């Protein structure tokens, strides 16, 4: 007994210690200039902001994996759907796009969804020849859908193809688009969950991985939606532009009173505003998540994660709960996606690749400590910091190593290869963390 309590006591200190460590790293990055740190608050805050967004995504993944044991390897897909939120809600409308084919596309989408619903009904209701019935419904629906869809798409994409060619946004405030992004992701998660949640562990992982790839493929190739691989830039900001601040005499004076030049000050100020926004969202999410986890609901989720057969025999609706947490977790990931494109000011579906957006988030969750919200969040910020700094640390390390080498082919070969130290550095750090904290930095109790 006493031992157990001791373990609890030590783990109570884990989170603050890790937090402290992270703060130190960021302060060093902000203040110290040497081979390892850049000594720029702008750089430190830029890393922090993306770290906070990663933390939101990690929180979403942690809900699915840590609470319920659902292995979602399609993070990139849900994130991409969330990213669609700002693109469709907050950007300015494209003149002529809606008139060119908007209603027709809506009709097509409704027909498409209707077809799927009908097919499901046919599968459930038709007693004999149901395979045939379902196929018939699907084929007919598909043709109706394409008949509606194709001309509309062609018309929209032809509308000012060079700089638009997409359906455009609604021009609403960008903050409003965040929940919309979360909703997109949630809706997709509901559909995915209905289909795939019967699968176990790695099978679910690969199914969701596939779904993620499919979503991204659609985003890349459906130009009418968000310009596909041509990217969508100029997504509005919830914070002022640096140039406007620099042009504002009041701000310049204020910056001068702090002893900084306006460019640096405006960068820092904007980043601080972002950090405040993201931090607030993150804290609200953590609060809700912690309350839920510590309640009977959380206990039920843990029971389901431990043993589904028994949980279901004890009256817990395993499928229902799985769907619930999958949808909620995906919505959080989607929210993170919406926040990310808002921060980037850019939607670039060509860059949504699973290594960066799925596996890196997973690394964050596991390194942080799955099942523990604080663990996931701290792990996210830390790993993101390392991911960025490995770009500098890897080559720096390589230079250190090669200093001793004689001038020659080997040395120049190694120096040429220095950028690849980025991955080696990341790998080494990951392995070290896992070695010394195999259950994560802040493990679940």
């Amino acid at each position: 007994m006493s031992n157990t309590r001791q373990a609890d006591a030590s783990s109570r200190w884990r989170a603050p210690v890790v937090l402290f460590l992270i703060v130190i790293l960021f302060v060093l990055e902000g203040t110290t200039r040497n081979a390892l740190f850049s000594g720029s608050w702008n750089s430190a805050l830029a890393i922090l902001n993306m770290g906070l967004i990663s933390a939101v995504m990690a929180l979403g993944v942690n809900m699915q994996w840590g609470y319920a044991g659902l292995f979602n390897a399609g993070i990139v897909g849900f994130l991409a759907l969330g990213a669609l939120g700002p693109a469709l809600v907050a950007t300015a409308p494209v003149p002529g796009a809606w008139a060119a084919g908007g209603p027709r596309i809506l009709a097509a989408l409704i027909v498409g969804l209707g077809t799927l619903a009908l097919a499901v009904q046919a599968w459930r209701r038709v007693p004999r020849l149901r395979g045939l019935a379902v196929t018939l419904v699907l084929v007919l629906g598909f043709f109706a859908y394409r008949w509606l869809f194709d001309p509309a798409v062609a018309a929209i994409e032809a509308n000012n193809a060079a700089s638009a060619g997409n359906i455009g946004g609604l021009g609403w405030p960008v903050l409003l688009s965040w929940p919309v992004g979360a909703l997109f992701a949630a809706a997709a998660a509901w559909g995915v969950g209905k289909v795939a949640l019967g699968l176990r562990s790695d099978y679910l992982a690969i199914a969701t991985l596939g779904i993620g790839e499919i979503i991204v493929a659609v985003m890349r190739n459906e130009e009418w939606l968000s310009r596909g691989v041509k990217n969508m830039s100029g997504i509005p900001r919830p914070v002022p532009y640096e140039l406007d601040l620099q042009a504002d005499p009041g701000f310049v004076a204020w910056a001068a009173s702090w002893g900084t030049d306006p460019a640096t000050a405006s960068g820092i100020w904007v980043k601080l505003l972002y950090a405040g926004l993201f931090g607030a969202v993150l804290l609200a999410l953590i609060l809700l998540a912690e309350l839920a986890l510590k309640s009977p609901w959380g206990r039920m989720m843990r029971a389901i994660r431990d043993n589904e057969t028994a949980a279901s025999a004890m009256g817990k609706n395993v499928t229902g709960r799985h769907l619930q947490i999958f949808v909620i977790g995906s919505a959080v990931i989607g929210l993170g996606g919406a926040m990310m494109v808002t921060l980037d000011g850019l939607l670039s579906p060509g860059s949504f690749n699973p290594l960066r957006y799925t596996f890196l988030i997973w690394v964050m969750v596991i390194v942080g400590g799955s099942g523990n919200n604080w663990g996931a969040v701290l792990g996210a910020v830390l790993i993101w910091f390392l991911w960025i700094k490995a770009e500098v640390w890897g080559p720096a390390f390589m230079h250190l190593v090669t200093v001793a080498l004689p001038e020659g082919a080997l040395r120049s070969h190694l120096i040429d290869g220095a950028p690849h130290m980025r991955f080696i550095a990341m790998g080494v750090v990951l392995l070290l963390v896992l070695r010394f904290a195999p259950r994560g930095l802040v493990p679940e109790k």
Partner: protein
Amino acid sequence: MIQVHDLHRHFGGFRAVDGASVTIETGSITGLIGPNGAGKSTLFNVIAGVLKPTSGRVVMDGEDITGLAPHQLFHKGLLRTFQLAHEFSSMTVRENLMMVPGAQTGETLVNAWLKRGRIREEERALRKKADEVLEFLTISHVADEKAGNLSGGQKKLLELGRTMMVDAKIVFLDEVGAGVNRTLLGTIGDAIVRLNKERGYTFCVIEHDMDFIGRLCDPVIVMAAGKVLAQGSASSIMQNEAVIEAYLGTGLKNKVAAEEAVERVTGESHGAQPGLGDEAGAFDGEKG
């Protein structure tokens, strides 16, 4: 009352349950015995919704419950234990019990955020109840241990304990006795009888311990090769030639046990189980 009509469950070509028809009367403690592989657990699993039947129907109090999911059956008052213990291994023993009751306020997400006070009260009551159950099963000293770390027998007890957390209509026990200390099993038997008498639970019990069956169960159903071989009172079953050949065997020790059991069953009525208090108290020394 549970009625099973001509139930089949096949695995590939193998007929694990091959046309069994069984009735479990409300208020009874029905025993289910039979050789290893007779299809008893499979029958349980079909009734409890874990396996889908190949054909046949299960009716509970006039309602067709074939193919309902386990959690739906739970809310209809049908509980079961598993032959191979299914604990929630990374949760504490107490939590294992506290999670059982259905319709807890705090199991809804919105309530978990908003109705903190009410949840706290419910939790207090649940905790008390769980501690009582643990006390009864003589495992209160491991209440805060992770269930995965329990000994084989303790897991079986926990399995049973979960069924005691709620008011069930009918409880299916799949070999609760295997691996459980015989003295404690006696106590458990008493508890089953008490729940049956006082709270009107119906039980259906699979067991290979003939003492236990003989002491508790009436009627006893014997399965073999997926079919019902015999049915009747414990004493009649134990003297049934076919049952002896297929199941009980003629081994001396079991004969002795069976005869003892028959004596006891015929000699005493169900209700008058002696020494309930004494036996429960016998473990005081072991606790803590």
